[in-house]
């Protein structure tokens, strides 16, 4: 019972991504070119585009994108950014808490959500130069190739 979630689509049903999986977040802001790739399917990002475990977010030379996740984490990306959600687990009553992601290049503004409040070592942002462990805060990061 506790694992069940009822989805109530009020205005429009969210696009189905990975079969049977619930979205872990949504795109909230967009400027210029931005895309979301889930299960090898690339879509032009728009306000309301759902994100799933494994989704790849990209912005173009003049693009930017802001997203929110189910645990309240907020992220926004500057131009020419590639960011991937490797693992997102948010089931507090079962103790399943993890947020592992990768910033391959570009810039990110990160605001902490609930996952790391409940489990301090559960959030890591990996980059090609090093890993960032997050303890309940806001930070900026830039990765130049």
């Amino acid at each position: 019972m506790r694992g069940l979630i009822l989805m109530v689509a009020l205005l429009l049903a969210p696009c189905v991504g990975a079969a049977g999986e619930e979205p872990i977040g949504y795109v909230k802001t967009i400027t210029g070119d931005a895309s979301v790739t889930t299960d090898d399917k690339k879509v032009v990002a728009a306000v309301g585009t759902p994100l799933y475990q494994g989704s790849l977010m990209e912005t173009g030379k003049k693009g930017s994108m802001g997203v929110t996740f189910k645990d309240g984490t907020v992220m926004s990306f500057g131009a020419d950014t590639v960011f991937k959600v490797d693992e997102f687990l948010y089931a507090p009553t079962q103790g399943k808490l993890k947020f592992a992601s990768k910033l391959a290049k570009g810039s990110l503004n990160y605001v902490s959500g609930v996952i790391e409040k409940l489990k301090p070592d559960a959030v890591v942002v990996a980059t090609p130069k090093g890993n960032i462990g997050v303890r309940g805060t806001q930070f900026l990061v830039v990765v130049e190739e």
Partner: protein
Amino acid sequence: MRIVNAGAATRNISIVRFLLVPLFLLILAGCAPKSYVVLLQSPDGTTGQVVVSGSGGTQTLATAGQRAPLDGSTPASPMKTEDIMAEFAQAIAARPKIPTQFLLYFTGGVTLTKESAALIPAIIAEAASRPAADLSVIGHTDTLKSDEYNDQLALQRAKKVAESLSAKGLKALTMTIEWHGKRNLLVQTPDNTFEPKNRRVEVSVR
């Protein structure tokens, strides 16, 4: 004779230092990290920590406005606010509104308290202020009676709030209904304990 020599040597070292220090600073400036993290204050006013670890070591940042290279090779150092704003203008401008939570309480069963019922329009207004608003409605109970009973009650409470929101004109992309029964207490109590603060529904608006 010795004294004169020592003086000459000192002068030579001074000249070398005079030339080397700016050169060293120039080299340092050229090596300013291109991949780095900057710690900021959270929107709620608190400042936490980030820990960077890479091939050069591990560094902990605990002061807002400090930066450190992602390879962990040098300790955190202050970065000017105007430099931060210039480097990260796009990412900062793209930041969505921070999610917010509402707690609604029940007199018993699925009846909201008067104060909590009055929050329904505020939740609807909050959702309307956000692009593609998505909501979580999570039902909770106190620890009186069984798990099965409380799962059902928590679900009914969440449904009741979701229905009230819809009936009063909520506009949102999606709303998910969840229930934690008596597994996620706001106020920790022993089992089979009456606690009005645990009889609640949490609404997150993102």
